[in-house]
């Protein structure tokens, strides 16, 4: 297996006319790493991948492999394998010849070529389909041929452009495991482009979150999921409630990561400041539904908010039964919607007190410079697997 020590992208930029698709991406990839480029469509992730592959010339910056500049090297001489979103299999060639294509171009002797093709096809469980044309295969099989075609050359870097987006949900899960297995077995350095945060979290060693061509955060799945660098990443990586709050006690809390107290119309929460949250004034508190706990259910409302130091009163509006727990949509006294999960039995119009661990309440500045909010969405069932939810809701 050919490995490089590291690949560096320095201030890599690409513009199309006036439109800046990718702005100054800095990334260092270690040999053997699995990197995911993550973001919504139009964020520049595919542009970054095509720049890496050599299919798009850069308009700024440099790409080096072990100190050697490669951004002017044509794609056919970079030695990077690529898996395309639409598979891009050669329709006139058999599965065997598709996989053998790169070896043929590299003038590998026929005996060795056939052996390596057979191995690659066995690796993706397609040995018996070698003589078929791509058109005779299912989508998942075609994708596996595309992967075999890219890895048979043992490239120093494999680029994958949303390889699973054309597959149905069940196949997508299966192929995800397959890709992870191949990566573990072959140790191929991989850059994987996706808009699906779940895919990125489950596959990658490190994630690059992009938006509008700018890098938002680079980190391990734990870092990006648990400690988002800014409000955008917080909203993009799994569902979070974005509550408008007022920071009241910033004193002594210091900068990033400091504890602070945030007030809502009724009640208050203890939170953690992120990304230059203000010492006082308007801010946004991001809390995952599963991090909100119901402290006091109906009946305890008599004691009022004053009974708890850090709690927010809410009225239950919609309750969905999700097996192990209930997904609840509630409303705060000032009208803000809040989603939370609980194993306490609740009914619409119940009054509850919500609390959350301070380290899970992330406080971000209210206004983000020139950035639109990510599209609002509801948390999908099972989108954020909750380790606490191990038992069914008590009847």
């Amino acid at each position, binding site marked *: 297996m050919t490995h490089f020590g590291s690949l560096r992208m320095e201030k890599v930029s690409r513009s199309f006319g006036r439109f800046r698709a990718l702005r100054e991406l800095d990334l260092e990839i270690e040999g053997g790493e699995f990197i995911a480029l993550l973001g919504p469509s139009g964020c520049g992730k595919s542009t970054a991948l095509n720049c890496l*592959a*050599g*299919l798009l010339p850069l308009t700024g910056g440099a790409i080096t492999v072990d100190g050697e500049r490669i951004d002017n090297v*044509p*794609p*056919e*001489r*970079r*030695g*990077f*394998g*690529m898996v*395309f979103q*639409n*598979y*891009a*299999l*050669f*329709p*006139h060639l058999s599965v065997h010849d598709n996989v053998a*294509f*790169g070896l*043929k*171009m*590299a003038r590998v002797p026929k005996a060795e070529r056939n052996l390596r093709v057979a191995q690659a096809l066995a690796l993706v469980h397609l040995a018996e389909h070698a003589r078929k*044309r*791509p*058109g*005779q*295969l299912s*989508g998942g099989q*075609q994708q596996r041929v595309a992967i075999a*075609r*890219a890895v048979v*050359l043992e490239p120093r870097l494999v*680029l994958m452009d949303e390889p699973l987006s*054309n597959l149905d949900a069940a196949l997508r899960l299966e192929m995800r495991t397959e890709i992870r297995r191949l990566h573990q077995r072959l140790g191929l350095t991989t850059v994987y482009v996706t808009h699906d945060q779940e895919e990125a979290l489950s596959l990658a060693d490190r994630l690059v979150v992009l938006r509008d061509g700018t890098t938002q955060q680079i980190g391990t799945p734990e870092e990006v999921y648990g400690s988002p660098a800014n409000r955008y990443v917080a909203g993009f990586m799994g569902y979070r409630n974005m509550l408008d709050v007022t920071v009241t006690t910033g004193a002594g809390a210091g900068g990033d990561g400091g504890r602070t107290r945030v007030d809502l119309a009724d009640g208050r929460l203890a939170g953690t400041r992120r990304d230059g949250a203000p010492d006082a004034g308007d801010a946004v508190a991001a809390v995952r539904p599963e991090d909100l706990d119901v402290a006091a259910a109906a009946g305890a409302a008599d004691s009022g908010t004053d009974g708890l130091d850090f709690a927010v009163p809410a009225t239950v509006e919609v309750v969905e039964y999700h097996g192990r727990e209930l997904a609840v949509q509630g409303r705060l006294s000032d009208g803000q919607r809040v989603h939370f999960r609980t194993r306490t039995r609740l009914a619409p119009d119940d009054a509850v007190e919500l609390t959350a661990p301070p380290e899970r309440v992330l406080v971000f500045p209210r206004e983000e410079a020139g950035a639109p909010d990510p599209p609002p969405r509801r948390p999908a069932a099972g989108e954020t697997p909750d380790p606490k939810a191990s038992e069914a809701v008590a009847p």
Partner: protein
Amino acid sequence: MSADAREGRPALRHRLAERGVDRTTMLVLPGVAFLLVLFCYPFVYGLQLSFQPAEGGGPFANYRTFFEDPYLRETIWLTLRLAVPAALINCLAAVPVAFRTRGVFRGRRLVMTLLVMPITLGTVLTAQGLLGYLGANGWFNKILTGIGIIDQPLGLVHNYWGVLASLVISGFPFSYLLTLSYLTGIDPSLERAAATLGASRRQRFRHVLLPLLAPGLAITFCLSFVLAFAVFPSAQLVGDPRGSTHVISIEAYEAAFQQFDYPMGSAIAMIMAAVMLVVVALVLTWRSLLYRGATGGKG
């Protein structure tokens, strides 16, 4: 139909639909009528006419005359000698030009308009242009003699070359447009995939684009050939209709409208059709050996 339905029989529409005939299929009817009136009838009429020679001698007398007379027989060869190279040149020239113009670039419209323009000229105007430009006193020869490259004007019109030039000028836009549409039907990610697999520009063309384009090129060649084989006006105007460009359509014209021997004219027309069919059948047989499926990325 409603009466049928009341009696419990399915409506005509439903009975037809059961056999895969719906109202959309009816749209072929005008086309079929056209074909019957403008192709089938004249063809059958001409065919039977060709077996009734004006001067007797049995039904095959016209065909025997044609193949026994070397002057007449020769016309097949003279026409093929023009039509095959013209069709080949048109196809081969269309590939690189279509290649360069398939992408999006500034001025693409202008370039395409210029390329397709000769269609609008018509053969007569083209012939006039060729006579004026390539003739013994045309600019081309004047410039060459003026610079001193040649002493005598080149004979470029009133011979084989003049007709070939005319056929290329009028046939190229068709081949170009056809080739371009075949080429743009090939998924561009196939070429990019080939590049990431280490194929150079030449290898990408040879191993990916050409195999996918070849069936289209075969069709382009056939159409181009059929157009060129029926060459008539340019063979008269810029050719040598008594000699090297005495093509088969001229012979048919002369038989029918100068000697008023319609049966002989019909026989020649039938021979013409047969020769075209043979060439087209050969090309299509070759094509049937090629891959002809989808040219998109996903099969």
